[in-house]
């Protein structure tokens, strides 16, 4: 057997079904045995697409996504997805070709030190030296990517060890052994002593809030969270990374906190006497000015990554462990103490008054321009409840998160930590490949769409029928909003034009069904028509109000107490 065949067999051994990639010189020898392998390969049009597809696949399925690219430019093109997956703890394994081992260090054609480049933005990476090491390395790579705090792992494979014509590629297959990683053993179960301390704090608190983050979805703890919240009657905020991790329609759900969070989620955290942070990391987009964040709150912080505990805010009780186990331990301990479903009427009533006073609002006057929020609401109301929604980065992302009702885990796929424009289209393709049974919509910005739209060619070719709603406001809207609010309306390099490119023609040229929507009346029929297409990608070009801004907003660097609500509520 040669290294190339071993690589295919290793991927199959890990249960991989699909690989997103694009070949080139150094990885060429792996593409030959691919022909004889049951693996499905999806040929992308740009390696960034392969990386985000792997991420979308991982978000939607919980299984690791896999991308395979060549050395040099192929490898550097996938740096953005690696960083994106690192920031959002997404399990992906990226295989890069490398120049032959003896040529490393000679500036050979398409040589690039990708393990060096990616060391800072991967959970771990490997340079494989011998063909015989391929099975074990791939096995370890998947283990590292998917356990503990998940993340991207890169495996760099020199050409000579996979090239059947090179003697260095000859090897005998041996099943990988149990992992020998002396420096890696994630802690899963929380320390029982700390669990009791946390339970004691919960018992004493009068105004607690559960601050739930992406760790809930990563540890598949949505059910445990629901049980825990219902037992304790503690309201729950769901960060941008945990939309869907707790149902939006639940009476205890306060929705998204943070810079564009809703008033109640932000204010409840500010007024809380206890924050129970579950798989969340006190990101600056959530805390605002850290010194002014939740000033009266004691902190319980549960995270599988101990480095997160106390990184931003000192925890009163910090528990290293997997959210699913630790939340279940909380519930168990509370039940043992005879905790009945609790009444927290005074606190919940206060919260309810905020919700009534400051709901999300936008101008709905009948003959105004088409509002982006209206489009999101109509999409929400005209698609199945378990639709998977992907977003780019910008205003449209915030409106999607604010106005969608996420009632199922793993229905929201977005780029949180890195904020990567262009994420939506490839991520939607990856999500649809992983969940062909689900409807997948991407809510994208016109600016974002232009960054990765070419992957619609991939979608058409591979018959991956995703649907894209471009909220076309002719601007880099989020940047425009900051210039309007914080730079005295001095607009600098943010105008894009609604017609250039001609989105419908562009989409059609890529084999998609396309429609352009200008008025509120056209919105619903267009969505219904789009939903009926099940063999081709669809692109809807919604011409929305360019002036619209995202509210509420906590200005950058301000305390969350300085939250600015919509002018309609001021």
């Amino acid at each position: 057997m040669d290294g190339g065949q071993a690589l295919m067999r290793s991927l199959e051994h890990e249960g991989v079904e699909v690989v997103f990639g694009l070949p080139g010189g150094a990885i060429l020898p792996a593409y030959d045995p691919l022909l004889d392998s049951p693996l499905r390969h999806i040929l992308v049009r740009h390696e960034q697409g392969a990386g985000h597809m792997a991420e979308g696949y991982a978000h939607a399925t919980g299984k690791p996504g896999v991308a395979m690219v060549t050395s040099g430019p192929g490898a550097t093109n996938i740096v953005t997805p690696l960083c994106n997956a690192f920031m959002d703890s997404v399990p992906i394994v990226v295989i890069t070709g490398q120049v032959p081992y003896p040529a490393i260090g000679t500036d050979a054609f398409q040589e690039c030190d990708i393990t060096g480049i990616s060391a800072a933005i991967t959970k771990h990476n490997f340079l494989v030296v011998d063909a015989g090491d391929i099975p074990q390395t791939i096995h370890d790579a998947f283990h590292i990517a998917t356990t503990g705090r998940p993340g991207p792992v890169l495996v760099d494979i020199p050409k000579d060890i996979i090239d059947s014509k090179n003697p260095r590629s000859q090897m005998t297959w041996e099943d990988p052994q149990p992992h020998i990683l002396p420096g890696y053993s994630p802690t899963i179960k929380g320390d029982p002593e700390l669990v009791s301390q946390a339970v004691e704090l919960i018992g004493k608190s009068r105004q607690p809030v559960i601050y739930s983050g992406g760790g809930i979805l990563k540890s598949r703890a949505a059910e445990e969270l629901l049980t825990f919240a219902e037992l304790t009657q503690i309201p729950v905020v769901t960060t941008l990374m945990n939309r869907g991790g707790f149902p939006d329609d639940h009476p205890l759900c306060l929705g998204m906190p943070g810079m564009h969070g809703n008033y109640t989620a932000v204010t409840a955290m500010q007024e809380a006497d206890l924050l129970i942070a579950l798989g969340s990391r006190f990101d600056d987009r959530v805390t605002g000015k850290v010194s002014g964040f939740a000033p009266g709150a004691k902190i319980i912080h549960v995270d599988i990554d101990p480095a997160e505990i106390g990184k931003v805010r000192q925890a009163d009780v910090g528990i290293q462990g997997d959210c699913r186990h630790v939340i279940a331990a909380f519930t168990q301990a509370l039940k043992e103490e005879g905790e009945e479903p609790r009444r927290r009427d005074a606190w919940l009533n206060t919260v309810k008054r905020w919700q009534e006073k400051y709901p999300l609002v936008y101008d709905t006057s009948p003959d105004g321009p088409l509002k982006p929020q209206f489009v999101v609401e109509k999409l929400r109301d005209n698609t199945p409840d378990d639709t998977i929604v992907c977003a780019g980065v910008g205003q449209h992302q915030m409106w999607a998160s604010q106005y969608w009702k996420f009632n199922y885990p793993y229905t929201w796929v977005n780029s949180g930590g890195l904020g990567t424009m262009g994420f939506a289209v490839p991520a939607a393709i990856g999500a649809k490949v992983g969940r062909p049974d689900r409807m997948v919509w991407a809510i994208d910005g016109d600016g974002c769409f232009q960054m990765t739209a070419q992957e619609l060619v991939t979608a058409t070719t591979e018959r991956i029928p995703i649907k894209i709603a471009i909220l076309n406001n002719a601007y880099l809207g989020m940047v425009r909003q900051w210039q309007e609010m914080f730079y005295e309306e001095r607009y600098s390099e943010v105008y894009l034009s609604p017609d250039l490119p001609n989105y419908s023609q562009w989409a059609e040229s890529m084999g998609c069904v396309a429609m352009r929507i200008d008025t509120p009346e056209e919105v619903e029929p267009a969505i219904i028509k789009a939903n009926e297409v099940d063999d081709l990608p669809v692109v809807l070009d919604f011409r929305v109000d360019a002036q619209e801004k995202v509210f509420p907003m906590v200005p950058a660097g301000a305390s969350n107490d300085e939250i600015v609500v919509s002018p309609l509520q001021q």
Partner: protein
Amino acid sequence: MTTSPVLDTPPHHTLVVLVENKAGVLARVAGLFARRGFNIVSLAVAPTEDDRFSRLTIVVDADSAPLYQVVQQLDKLINVVEIRELHPSHSVERELLVATVRAGPELRGQVMDLVRIFEARVLNVGSDAMMVSLSGSPSRISDFARLLQDYGIMELQRTGKVALASLDQISQQEPDAE
């Protein structure tokens, strides 16, 4: 008074880090310190008694980051096997200094006095300079370097310290060994 990093060690922590003996591990550790803004005062690396591992003695500037963060971030590196903080009073620390001092024939005797007092060694003698070396505790090394300064130091290299827990510490930290 100005401080010199060669002569005065700022408030610091000493970490002894066992890492897998693999290519690129030092770069991973150094890269982590750089991107997290942790300052390294000194770093010494060498293989251990077990050839699967290397041991690093890292002296970290205590003002640049909370120790807990440094340790937890380091621990996330897959190749990092074990991290111990060593307190000076519970560890043995050693360092080596090599210096070339300006000392013509008339000053040689004075430098030789210092060499004798510190039990240092003379490595090389030139017409107007001497090369000396001293191994010992970091503070003794600093004292020696400070005194040599009066003669004019042409070149000076310290290795950065290596450290191990003192024997009472080892037996305390391994209750399983009983």
